[in-house]
């Protein structure tokens, strides 16, 4: 977590904390596809300094899937041949809600 880039000494990674206390360390750039997290990391908010975002409404199982999507998005954001991401049916409704909450809506890819 000490890895810094030239960008104001901020770490390249941030930590996402789920409601039930699971922590996920994610590339900062990969979380850019979420409006909510991007907003948290901007504007000199506490989260921007500590690099630790607590997501009080999302539990670990769902956040894990969200984090998987972050990396999936990060990996394929500039590609045209994108494979589908697997989403288990039992989580899809909660993921819809979480995606809406995090502002992970259709964007210019």
């Amino acid at each position: 977590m000490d890895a810094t880039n030239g960008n104001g000494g901020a770490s390249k990674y941030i930590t996402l904390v789920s409601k039930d206390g699971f922590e996920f360390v994610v590339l900062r750039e990969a979380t850019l596809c979420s409006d909510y997290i991007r907003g948290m990391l901007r504007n000199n908010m506490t989260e921007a300094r500590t690099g630790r975002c607590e997501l009080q409404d999302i539990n670990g199982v769902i956040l894990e899937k969200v984090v998987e999507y972050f990396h999936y998005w990060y990996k394929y954001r500039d590609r045209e041949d994108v494979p589908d991401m697997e989403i288990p049916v039992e989580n899809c409704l909660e993921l819809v809600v979480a995606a809406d909450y995090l502002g992970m809506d259709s964007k210019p890819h």
Partner: protein
Amino acid sequence: MEVDEPTLSSLPVPDELPAFITNVPGVRKRSRGYYAPPPPSPGMSSSSDPAYFSSDDDPALDNYLQGRRKRRYVGSWFDQVPASSDSVMGDDADPGPSSNPRHKRHLKRQPDSGVWVGQDAATDTDGDIDLPPLAARLPLPLPVVKRIPRLSSEEQRAQNVVLACVDDGREDVDLSQMGLASIADSVLEPLAGLTPIPVVEKDVPFVPRDPSLKLFLGNNQLSRFPSALLDLQHLTVLSLRNNKLAELPPAIAKLKNLTTLNIANNRLRHLPGELIDLMESAIGFHTLNIHPNSFFQPKDRRYFLADDLMQHEYEYRTRGSGIHGFLVDRDRGENFTLFTTALRARTPVQFSNSAGHVLSKFIFPEKTQRLTDSSKQLETEDFGSLVIPQTVKQHLESLGDSKRSFQPKGPSSLLATAMRVAARSKDAESLPNFLRSDGCPSHLADPLERAIVVDKMGGQHCTVCKRETLCPVTEWIEFREIRSTTVERMTSAEGTTEARIRHRNISGREDEAWVPFLRRGCSWACTPNVLDSSDVTPHTML
């Protein structure tokens, strides 16, 4: 015994080897004595390893007749006395025999109950892993008892007709004027298995042929396109004249064998853009009746494309393919009809997010709203410009990608992906109601419901990048003139072939000439091509 439940009496390590092992040389028997495990510690007492419980699987069991004295076990496992009172056996079991390991053995075979047969499952330790209890999640759907759809009396009559046709191998299925308000998939599904009676003549080899199904559903009250039709690959004639259809599904383009489509006199506001591809590419498509309908009209008819080249440019970059028609080299036989469309105008693009919230100033009239003569007039936009709402622009800039590209890349959004999975799940119909319950974001329920309908209707694809999208975020309408060209080849008396070519517009009336086709995109970058007149370079016609 002071051991914690649910232990049984511990087993003593045999202090001497059974006599027969040493007495029978050359016969090697497995014997517990050599590797007798240490007596189970209290912590291990929940182990279900049968060696500690049951005498029945003693490896020396088959040596009863040799008079071996069985000292370690008395009775089978259920005769063992549990140490604690809340065990299955209860308190009334006699602790006597097992409390004394030296108890005289009764030579009575205890039938094994077979309880220990499933040991693999019984000994797994999944339940022992210490996990914090899962936090409360959205309430799980109650199991929905699927109602078996009951057919209305009209549908039943239709079903009888369908079944009769399938039985007789008749390809003309006439379901018109039956008062159908809806038609269940189960009614039409048998048609997929219809096999026509093949022509059997003398000296003609028997060849099974594909059916050319003709389905007449005119003069009914259908308000929804029957989704089962989309699976009828061999449908050639489809008449839905005089119904109450409000929309045609984009998946209608799957009906590649269609030659005649009659959708006159419905409540259609626009046609799916995919119908253009069907008209232009389906071999043998020759008749299209689309008027009258309550189609959208352009407010003014000013914006013309200078020539076909501009249209080709527009189509090529928006759709990934140029103008079809004659350009496609395909054997169409001697006489044929083909349809081409001439792009005339385009509305501004309606930008929204996946949840259906419209961001742009331009907005299509609500689907439930009744169209008047003025509200069905849509404004049009110059082909050289594109109005992008401020929020969308900001977004593009915040990503450092202000330059729009027409080849969108990257995965679809998580919301759209999850929505697609939800719409395809087994009991998708019950999901929107969960989002409507307390504490849930109810604004997602309607988009999800729409996605379910779209998925049921065969799905739809992004016009620009061709990816599947159940919740399009850009939508616009293209007004096109539909022209049909008939080519008749005739051989004159002198033996020369001459072709007679007739062009005509599909409707002679001016207010019906421009037909609206709906286009959609899966991301904000999936927008129609903005033509730059200085940028148009001549494309070689194929």
